[in-house]
């Protein structure tokens, strides 16, 4: 009883203070050496057995990644955890949103692909998840789109993949059956075009996202100098219809480019949610919630100081992180 009162006091008192609008005070009071997702967690699952079975109890070199994908037409949403052995292949685990493991698929090479494809199936790594109950099909698509592609799909026209070659940005238009690319374009074909104004170095990742058919495809261009925390983010609104014909070049002068957001990490992923865009700040583990115009709405502390794999659901209500040390997958409130 006393302990509860104490906790209540510890929480209510600062809460009253923060009602006065002092965000800085809240930030200071909530600083912790422990990751923020621990107190945001609404569910978690221990995967020690599963993962050790795959990578070995000795814990050889391995990486992991998380993707949260939702098929809006069916309303089905899954969390995919990729465990990559190094050297070795990768295994993709599929969970429902209550973190119940449903199925898994495995390939003997790595792929970063993740999208709900034009058929409405979930393609993660090189595994296709389809049907109800969810079933996996490894080595899909067969044509080996397994590079550092960032992809989106349009149900009527097919799948679109973009990647940075380091020298240029190229994108492929691929049929809904994942046949050979029907179109390869280089909308940003020169290093001059690739350089964001005044930055002087190349964007490293392009994250396209098409949320609702008819809406623009939001291209998230972000980058930063190597070995430096300082980075930038620019959001370019591109019409989806142009991808099936031809993107007008140069992209930066032809399409609406939102004001550049500084103070973000250039080497970290950017996440699209319907509540805004989430990008990691220069302070490791702290994330901005941005509007599509690039304005900062909110900040949240997710991890302490380390880079952790995570992804947000499309609605922006939850994020999912994987604790590599304890092989535990967490589902946590965003608070957005």
């Amino acid at each position, binding site marked *: 009883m006393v302990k509860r009162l104490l*906790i209540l006091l*510890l*929480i209510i008192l*600062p*809460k009253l203070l*923060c009602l006065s609008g002092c965000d800085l005070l*809240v930030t*200071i*009071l*909530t*600083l*912790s*050496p*422990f*990751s*923020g997702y*621990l*107190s*945001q*967690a*609404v*569910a*978690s699952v*221990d995967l020690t057995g599963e993962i050790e079975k795959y990578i070995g109890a000795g814990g050889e070199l391995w990486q992991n990644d998380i993707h949260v994908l939702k098929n809006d037409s069916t309303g089905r949403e899954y969390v995919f955890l990729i465990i990559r052995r190094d050297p070795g292949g990768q295994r993709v685990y599929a969970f429902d949103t209550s973190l119940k493991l449903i199925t898994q698929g495995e390939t003997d090479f790595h792929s970063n692909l993740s999208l709900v494809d034009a058929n409405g199936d979930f393609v993660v790594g090189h595994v296709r998840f389809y049907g109800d109950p969810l079933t996996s099909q490894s080595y899909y698509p067969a044509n080996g789109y397994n590079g550092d592609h960032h992809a989106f799909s349009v149900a009527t026209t097919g799948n679109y993949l973009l990647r940075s070659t380091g020298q240029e940005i190229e994108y492929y238009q691929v049929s809904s059956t994942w046949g050979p690319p029907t179109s390869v374009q280089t909308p940003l074909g020169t290093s001059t075009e690739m350089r964001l104004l005044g930055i002087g170095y190349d964007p490293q990742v392009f994250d396209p996202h098409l949320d609702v058919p008819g809406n623009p495809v939001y291209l998230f261009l972000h980058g930063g100098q190597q070995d430096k925390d300082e980075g930038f983010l620019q959001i370019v609104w591109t019409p989806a219809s142009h991808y099936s014909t031809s993107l007008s070049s140069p992209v930066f002068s032809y399409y609406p480019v939102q004001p550049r957001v500084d103070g973000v990490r250039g080497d970290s992923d950017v996440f699209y949610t319907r509540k805004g865009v989430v990008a990691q700040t220069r*302070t*490791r*583990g*702290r994330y901005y919630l941005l509007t599509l115009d690039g304005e900062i709405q909110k900040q*949240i*502390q997710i991890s*302490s*100081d*380390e880079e952790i794999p995570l992804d947000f659901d499309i609605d922006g209500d939850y994020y999912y992180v994987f*604790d590599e*040390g*304890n092989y535990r997958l967490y589902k946590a*409130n965003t*608070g957005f």
Partner: protein
Amino acid sequence: MKYRGIGLLAALATTLFLSTAVAWSQESAASIPFRTCLFPTVDLSTSDEYREYQSIISNQLRAELKNAGFDIIPREEWEKVRERQGVRVSELYQGNVALGIAEEVEAEIALVSFYSVAERQMVLEIKCYDVAQKAMINGVFKIARINLSIYNVIGEAVTELIPGIHLLGPPPIVESPVVEEIALLSADEDAEIYLGDEGFVGRISEGKLLLPPIPFALGTKITVEKRKEGYHTGNETLKLKEPEMIIKLQPLRKQTRSATELTWTVGQLLGFGLAQRIYLRPDLSYLSAEHYFYVQHNLSDSKPVFHHDLRALFGGYLFTGPDRAARFNISTGFGMIATYFALADQPMYADFYWNLINVALELNFLKFVLFVRSEQKYALGAGPANLLGRGWISAFGEGPTSFTLGFAWKW
């Protein structure tokens, strides 16, 4: 004997010459007609062979003094006193004897002279006293061979003596006020008080100690040392400004055997810590055990996570003694953070860490300490279930682990 007669003549001639010179040079002394008691020269030689020098020296002195304006008291006058006092003439070379007679005849100056000859070498001494002060004013001391030059030596002695004759007058009164009374007030009952060279001077009783009368001059600085069982010895330097001083002494600092800390740490602000220090050496080194409980919460929609930070530290003080108002403290140790969740089905975690070093600045009050402490903790990543892995524990992402504000009550 023949040559001795010539010698006497030469001496007289020399005396006359010197008399003139001295009279000229001592004009200022002559302007003050000191009443002078000139006693006959005493021959202290073992034989009578050189007795004639008595009169030579006496006469020369008499002549010079007169020339210089001294008022020579006639022998008849002091002779009566001498006889009454029972003093022999041969004793009149002694200063105290001569002063006794001179005082009775109300002389201002007394002048004695004596010599001794051995192996034809004369040792001559003439002394002049201020009667009122019973103090020697001037004196000459000469050594010479008995030959013709002896008269010159006598003349020189007299010449040197007379210019230096003047009354000393009463000794100057030193107008240096002293402290008459020093009272020390102290809350440290029974404390022993020591004063530099004086050593132990007393003990505080009923809050007060009246120091024994020691004539310290006003303005003097004295250092008081205070000793009491169970307390640190204290030193205080006091300036004595007034004849009667009432000085309130600073209280002694009790030797701290243990202290209880209340702490608040950045990165753990939704909680607090309690620690107990046990001093191995009072106020110098200690062992400490701490329990810091805090909640992790984002103050909006979190489910709280509970952390119990338990650690043991060894600490001590650098550069600064127990009596200093500000002290540097360092400590090191090991700890463990136990974590559990409000969320169901979560395991309990334990993060063991090395508290590499804590550096604190302490404000040292009599009963308590206020401190700010920088803490460096390194998570060891040990144990079957931990959350922090291996690395520096920091609430700031990078940089120092944390800062703590603390209060410690001394027991």
